């Protein structure tokens, strides 16, 4: 096409070295790390600018929030709050992982279990499970149990469905291979289906963890304020906004690190095998 010619012409006019050098500089400028730093800088400056404007008395700037963050980190209140929030989260996730993977695998290997259990979980996956939180409070009170169950109802559906689909997606030829080399059903499940499904099961756990975080915080905001939820509601009620924002910042940072950590473990396990979830 005609439009191609000009660029071809300029390539022939001997400005190659200069171009190359410009490209190298440009490469550095668009290096992922440079840009990641740049976005952080832009985002936090915008936050700071909006805080100074101020867009709202309830919107502290970045610096103010970070100072509150440092204060709370120093006096230990942030850490103890995060640890409290982590309790129902970790307990709920552990239960969801064990029960969820168990159910999912059972559905993956048995048509009857699939028929019986898949539909409720398909509905739950699409449904706003948070609507059941008041019910958990009715049934189990306002203690830790309700919070753990909140995490469970949020995290379980995706873990169950991922495990189930993962098992179902075991390549048919691998199962035939197992049968043709005289593997028993138990051997085929343990040595072929489970290892084959593990990357997708693991990805389900990661999604479950993300949903579980939403549930854990929701439980602390809705049921009784404890941990980070307490820091958020209390500081909101006394209009101590920098502290409120710092608490929110910290729990989001924690969840990002938690989920990124899971991703790192995942990559380390499956990279050697040439499989990534």
């Amino acid at each position, binding site marked *: 096409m005609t439009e191609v010619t000009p660029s071809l012409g300029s390539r022939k006019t001997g400005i190659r070295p200069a171009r190359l050098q410009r490209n190298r500089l440009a490469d550095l400028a668009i290096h992922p790390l440079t840009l990641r730093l740049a976005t952080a800088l832009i985002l936090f400056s915008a936050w700071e600018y909006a805080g100074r404007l101020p867009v709202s008395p309830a919107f502290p700037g970045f610096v103010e929030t970070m100072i509150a963050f440092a204060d709370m980190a120093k006096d230990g209140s942030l850490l103890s709050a995060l640890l409290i929030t982590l309790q129902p989260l970790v307990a709920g996730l552990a239960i969801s992982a064990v029960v969820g993977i168990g159910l999912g695998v059972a559905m993956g290997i048995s048509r009857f279990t699939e*028929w019986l259990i898949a539909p409720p979980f398909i509905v739950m996956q699409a449904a706003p499970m948070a609507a059941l939180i008041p019910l958990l409070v009715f049934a189990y009170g306002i203690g830790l149990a309700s919070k753990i169950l909140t995490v469970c109802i949020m995290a379980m559906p995706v873990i169950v469905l991922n495990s189930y689909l993962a098992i179902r997606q075991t390549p048919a030829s691998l199962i035939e291979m197992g049968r043709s080399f005289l593997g028993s059903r138990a051997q085929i499940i343990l040595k072929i289906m489970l290892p084959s499904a593990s990357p997708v099961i693991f990805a389900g756990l990661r999604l479950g963890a993300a949903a579980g975080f939403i549930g854990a915080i929701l439980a602390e905001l809705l049921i009784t304020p404890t941990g980070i939820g307490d820091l958020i509601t209390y500081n909101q009620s006394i209009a101590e906004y920098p502290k409120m924002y710092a608490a929110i910042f910290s729990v989001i940072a924690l969840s990002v690190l938690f989920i990124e950590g899971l991703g790192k473990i995942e990559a380390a396990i499956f990279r050697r095998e040439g499989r990534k979830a």
Partner: protein
Amino acid sequence: MKIYGFRVPLMASLIVWIALWEVIGRTGAALVLPPFSSVVERMVEIVPTPTFLKALAMTGEAYLIGNLIAIGIGVPVGVLMGRSVVADRLLLPWVNIFLSAPLSALVPVIMVLFGLGMTTIVLTVVLFAVWIIVLDARAGVRGISPSLVEMARSYGATPLQAFAKIYLWAALPEILAGIRLGCIRAVKGVIIGQLLVSIVGFGHLFEIYFSNFLMEHFWALVLTLFAFAFAIAEGLGYLERRVEYYASSRQQ
């Protein structure tokens, strides 16, 4: 599943679960679980009431506006990220963070900034829906065959024309998949927002039923919401499969 060679449809097992629910409800063993039949009766009773219809209208409005904003922002941003390396590298880490961040923690911020009303609910919906829409639109654009892009360029399409006439259409299946997932997340967002704000829409109803221990009402509301959510998810899934059909025939 098959029984004596008969194919029993998958969703049929829900009937088993509902029967179980009915039995447990009738025995009165679980205080919080009234029989299914009385929940359905209650549902028929409360759905036509003005309070319910008002809450439904308010929720539906917040849901629709929120989704439209999420699509309006998400699709162009995703297409931009798919086309420009710089934009991609600038935004992708943040999109990924917010995709899996506990967004329920951000709702209190929206509440203190925008008050306890419609705006907050709409923004919660946007917050829940937008990230997956961005990510899928980006994936769709990245999957466009380079020859199509070159074709657009060689015919001298302006960036806006290329966006509206090429990228949007070529990436349509992925964009729609993102919108479907966004809509499912938005249902969760709209309910979480209302639960936290608790003086508008269904949140308000939940609050009333909860404080008066109206279990049948409560379940009737939950059931209605779940039915809506499931219908939305399945309906969009159906539409998407139709488009996928078009997309696979398109690639030949």
